[in-house]
């Protein structure tokens, strides 16, 4: 069996004092792409936050292991340097910090951890140009402040660009498809597919099936009220698209039986 990249065991977490995750079990192995679907408020983003170490997401019980290492003992930057990447649902605007400077700082922080030499300005420029072309990112967005004044689609492309630069081992995409038109969706998906490999694992969080037309998952999980209520192959996504989530939420046991 391939190496377990991410192991989630009985994970319970709360945000703002309110329990959100109520016992998640999930294993992602090298080479796998899993989709996590579920209605609003089911806890998808809280799980993403727990993986990245978001302040305010309080782990109350359970374990998170990344390549055998306890993820909960690591600060967000330490997770990132080891190869955990979260593409944000709402990328943050940082006025006054140029995208280029930001991307270079991030890449060199990760490279340093890997024992690689930092890239100088010229080397960085050639790498970033190559990756930016993959997500069809206009050049001027590199010179502008991070995400400031970017359209929704440009922000998401910027997330994928960061992912392509940092080459993570575990990529978590939190509703990267939300608010994207079909062209942007295609660009984002091709960026993700470019990174897909036998060494990596990806967790694609989405509300809709349409992203999964472009990024075909190995497994699909349905999250409802803080629990994975159903798991299946890629065809589950199509079924969800057709029938909605209600049949799983209302009668999870029965739904499980009917699906089997």
């Amino acid at each position, binding site marked *: 069996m391939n190496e377990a990249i991410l192991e989630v065991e009985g994970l319970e977490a709360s945000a703002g004092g309110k329990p959100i995750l109520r016992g998640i079990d999930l294993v992602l192995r090298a080479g796998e792409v899993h989709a996590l679907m579920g209605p609003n408020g089911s806890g998808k983003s809280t799980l993403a936050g727990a993986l990245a*170490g978001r302040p305010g997401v309080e782990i109350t019980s359970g374990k998170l292991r990344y390549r055998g290492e306890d993820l909960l003992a690591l600060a967000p930057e330490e997770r990132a340097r080891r190869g955990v990447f979260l593409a944000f649902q709402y990328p943050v605007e940082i006025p006054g*910090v140029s995208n280029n400077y930001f991307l270079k700082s991030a890449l060199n922080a990760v490279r340093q951890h890997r024992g690689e030499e930092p890239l100088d300005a010229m080397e960085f420029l050639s790498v970033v140009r190559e990756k930016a072309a993959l997500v069809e990112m206009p050049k001027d967005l590199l010179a502008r402040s991070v995400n400031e004044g970017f359209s929704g689609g440009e922000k998401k492309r910027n997330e994928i660009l960061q992912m392509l630069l940092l080459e993570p081992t575990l990529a978590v995409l939190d509703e990267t498809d939300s608010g994207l038109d079909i062209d942007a969706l295609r660009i984002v998906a091709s960026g993700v597919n470019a990174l897909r490999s036998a060494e990596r694992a990806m967790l694609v969080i989405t509300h809709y099936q349409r992203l999964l037309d472009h990024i075909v998952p190995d497994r699909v999980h349905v999250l409802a009220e803080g629990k994975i209520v159903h798991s299946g192959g890629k065809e589950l996504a199509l079924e969800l698209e057709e029938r909605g989530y209600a049949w799983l939420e209302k009668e999870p046991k029965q739904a499980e039986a009917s699906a089997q």
Partner: protein
Amino acid sequence: MSALAKAGERWQALASAEATRLGASEAPVAGALRRSGLDAFAAQGLPSTRLEEWRYTNVAELAAIPWQPAEGRAPEISRDAVEALASPVFACGLLVFVNGRFVPELGALRSPEVEVISLGAARRASDPRALQRIGTLLDVKVHSFAALATACLDDGVCIRFPAGARLRQPLHLVFLSASADVAPVVAHPRVWIEAGRGSEAVVVQDHVSLGSAPAFTNSVTELHVGPGARLSHLLLQREGGAVFHVSNTAVQLERDAKLAAHVVTLGGRFVRNDLSVQLAGEGAEAVLNGLFLCAGTRLVDNHTFVDHAVPHGTSRQLYKGVLSGRSRGVFRGRVLVRPQAQKTDAKQSNPNLLLSDGAEIDGKPQLEIYADDVKCSHGSAIGRVDESALFYLRTRGVDEATARALLVRGFAAEVLAALPEPALAEALVDAFAERLGAP
């Protein structure tokens, strides 16, 4: 008698002695100026915190120090030393002042169209041309420190950009505070700039210091921007931690004149800046762009006054403060729109970033509008480092301390990016980050 009153008397005695020493052979207009300054200072004394304008800024520490004129106390300064202190070196015309005294041999003027007259030389040569307009843009009766500077008028510079002159390079005025011993020295550097009709120029007024002895710079700058002229002026304060700096800058804008007044304060123990801009001609435009950094136990106080005296004037003010340690900052921005100043468009914004619990900022924007067809807005805000941005950076592998520094740098960059000389702007971003960590 209060300590402040005693200090006031000491200053008067000092000014009188200076007048006697300097007044022997000079243009009578200089003596008259000094007397008007002394009278105004005697009437006001040093400002107490009972005055609204000085409510948050206590001059007691400044008043307690026995300042002496720098006369004869200046060490030998080389051109290299000046360039090192006022780095980076960029293509410019250079004028150097040591303890307020113009030292022509340390500088180099590259633009033949610029007229530069040393006030000291003009005084001694009984050449009143350069002195005639000194003090005309500033009311010494309400500015106690400007009155004191006028009472002690010694040297400085009068610069004229003739009509239509377009300077290809900035003019860099470097004011160096330096003492050969540990005696606390005071200087009252005086700058008058006349930007003639349709001229275009960039002036960097750069204050630096050498050594760790206490120094007091009490500077007065007057800028007259003629019709259609464009003047960009940067007051840059990057002195050491033992320097007290009080500056008064007064500007008058004629018809369609454009001013960019940048004030960047990175150093000094105690800094008070008064910047007053009058839009005296229709269609005039003023941009006031400020950044102040307060660290340790320092105090930086910025007071601005924008006077819309005629219709169709535009003013834009952005003052940003960054405070750490147990420092204190003050921003008070007053915008006056007079009854006849219809179609005025005035904006003022003062966001501040507090980096510690011990730091304190008093922000007070003030709009006084007496015309009815105007567009005016103002705002002052105090914030901390954006936690969501911090998390975002950390998820990209950037450690927390670096991420914080990056965010603060970003906050400052908006002001610094607007500076007229890119090489200087870039160097100041780094200097800013460096000073941020200093005690």
